[in-house]
């Protein structure tokens, strides 16, 4: 197998990054400075063209022209919903009330996602510049970056960057000698996934419980402190300066017709080359997973790829040729999401995998609306039951019934999308659910209620290591005698398999 970040042996020349399979298909727009410059020095950002876009916007363009370029570029919000950024800005601009706020959603809470963190850590000025351009466009003088507290380095770099931008006059009064003034503050989250939802995020900035509220009114009309507000994701802001500098046509020429530009993914899970990548929209899942990610380690079989995090969905091997863009992924049964891409192999049980996301999402339900609060809990009960081998034939209908209700009746995207992973895995891996319910078997040998650990007698040397390490005390046996695992005591934690040096324990 060709390894993406391992250069081909050639003693004379060292390959350029652009020749490495990992980078060959990448196009770096939002990530252009990440890993290249010192993020703590504004001079290095400026040296690479930093703040020229802001200068161009405020000195050569009217706010409407800025919005026009953004609309023509057809940049769609990189937070996941994919709404056209320029149109969002236009709504906020047309809102009569004052003051207006520009907000950056950096509450990257999806497990398996670190795109926003990497940008904030590696190139914070690009986000600040993007926000300042947005502020100029909508007529705002005050902005907030809502960053999750679990990202201390990102917050530290942002603080330095904001301070430097103020010293250089890119934030503050009369930017580039114009009438435009804008300043920026950081708000640290306090650990609530739902705060990634824009109305909850704004409630949190106001110092309240981060509970969403119904829309409309949309933030563009009534947002932070009931004033017009524009909320975009880190990646959307980071792309903005490049769009202003290089023009709408340039951006629209990358990617696909309906989803221009690039997509940024945090590639993780059972994949050889985990990493942070930026590819043109329209690149297929196969190209990302095999060409860039180097395929599945240990010669295992690809089973599924989850996009959109805990509110997204998984896709099976048959869908590997799906191009990655907002519409194609939804059509295929998943979502674009913010950019987490998790690959799993044959050793992953899709019931357990769905249950994992559901556990996360239902625990993060804020509890305000009933479909999400109760629905998530009920759904989790059904999945837990199936995983424990107590599933009933009617459970699959039950899943569909609850999911439909949550999707239609929940207040915000968290509740509406919580059933997503279950629905997708049920759609593509129904037979696995049926094996759990009818045959009382977990095909991937993961679900604790459906597996038994057994000693392979021929291999057991009676070394007693498993017996000593078993936290449940389920293993018996004398020295140099074949050991025995009592299935009634065994917790199925798998520690015995890990410590056994003789491959003498198997799962049935």
């Amino acid at each position, binding site marked *: 197998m060709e390894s993406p970040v391992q250069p081909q042996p050639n003693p004379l020349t060292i390959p350029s990054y652009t020749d490495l399979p990992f980078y060959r298909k990448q196009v770096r727009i939002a990530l252009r400075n990440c890993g290249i410059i010192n993020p703590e020095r504004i001079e290095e950002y400026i040296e690479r063209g930093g703040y020229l876009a802001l200068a161009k916007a405020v000195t050569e363009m009217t706010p409407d022209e800025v919005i026009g370029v953004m609309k023509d570029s057809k940049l769609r919000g990189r937070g996941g919903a994919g709404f056209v950024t320029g149109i969002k800005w236009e709504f906020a601009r047309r809102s009569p009330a004052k003051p207006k706020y520009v907000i950056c959603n950096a509450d*990257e*809470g*999806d*497990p*398996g*996602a*670190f795109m926003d*963190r990497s940008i904030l850590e590696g190139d914070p000025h690009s986000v600040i510049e993007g926000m300042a351009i947005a502020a100029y466009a909508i007529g705002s003088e005050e902005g907030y970056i809502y960053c999750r*507290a*679990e*990202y*201390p380095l990102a917050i530290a770099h942002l603080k330095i960057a904001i301070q430097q931008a103020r010293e250089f006059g890119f934030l503050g009064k009369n930017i580039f000698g114009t009438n435009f003034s804008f300043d920026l503050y950081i*708000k*640290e*989250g*306090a*650990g*609530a*996934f739902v705060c990634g939802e824009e109305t909850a995020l704004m409630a*949190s*900035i*106001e*110092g*309240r*419980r*981060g*509970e969403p509220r119904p829309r409309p009114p949309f933030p563009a009309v009534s947002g932070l*402190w009931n004033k017009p507000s524009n909320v975009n994701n880190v990646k959307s802001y980071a792309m903005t300066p490049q769009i202003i500098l290089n023009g709408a046509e340039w951006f629209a020429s990358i990617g696909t017709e309906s989803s221009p530009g690039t997509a940024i993914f*945090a590639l*993780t*899970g*059972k994949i050889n080359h*985990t*990493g942070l990548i930026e590819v043109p929209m329209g690149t297929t899942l196969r190209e990302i997973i095999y060409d860039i990610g180097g395929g599945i380690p240990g010669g295992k079989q690809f089973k599924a790829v*989850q996009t959109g995090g805990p509110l997204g969905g998984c896709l099976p091997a048959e869908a590997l040729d799906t191009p990655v863009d907002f519409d194609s992924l939804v059509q295929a049964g998943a979502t674009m999401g913010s950019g*987490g891409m*998790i690959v*799993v192999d044959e050793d*992953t049980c899709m019931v357990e995998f769905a249950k*994992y*996301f559901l556990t*996360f999402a239902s625990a993060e339900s*804020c509890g305000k609306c009933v479909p999400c609060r109760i629905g998530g809990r009920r759904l989790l009960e059904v999945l837990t039951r199936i995983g424990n081998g107590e599933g009933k034939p009617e459970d699959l209908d039950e899943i569909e019934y609850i999911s439909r209700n949550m999707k239609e009746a929940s207040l915000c995207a968290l509740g509406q999308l919580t059933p997503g992973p279950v629905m997708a895995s049920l759609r593509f891996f129904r037979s696995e659910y049926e094996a759990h319910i009818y045959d009382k078997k977990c095909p991937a040998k993961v679900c604790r209620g459906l597996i038994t650990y057994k000693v392979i007698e021929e291999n057991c040397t009676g070394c007693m290591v498993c017996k000593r390490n078993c*936290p449940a005390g389920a293993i018996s046996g004398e020295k140099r005698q074949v050991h025995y695992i009592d299935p009634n005591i065994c*917790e199925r*934690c*798998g*520690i015995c398999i*890990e410590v056994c040096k003789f491959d003498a324990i198997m799962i049935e």
Partner: protein
Amino acid sequence: MSETLEEQTFDLIPLLAILEEYKNQKGAIIPILQRTQEIYGYLPKPVLKEISKRLRIPISRIQGVATFYAQFHLKRRGRHLIRVCDGTACHVKGAMKTVDVIHEQLQTPPNGSSPDYKYSLEIVYCLGSCGLAPVVVVDDKVYGQTEPDKLVRQLKRLE
């Protein structure tokens, strides 16, 4: 235990400094609670009452905020905070095994503390270092590609 803690007195001087610092900021409860927790290690009830009194915000609202966000703790915690990431990547790479081993060998249950308050153990969702799964954060130090037994040995060496 909780009774005695309730009666315990707390030095409120650092709290007053925090309240002074944020007095002109709108909607500053969350940063105030964050800073307060930095000082006391958690949010003791008498301290919350003091915040309520000084800011003229009903204790119910402060309690509401403090219980809403996962970052805030209303119970005393151990000297060393062990956070085991159970994000997707870590989960598939065996994060819960690490939790089992820490529980067993350090008498520290998940979301609880050891009897001597040396360790507290938390299971957290993604810490954003999935490339290094399974990840464990001890105080502020990140351990990547952890092995349960090796980790426990390192934890035992802490003061």
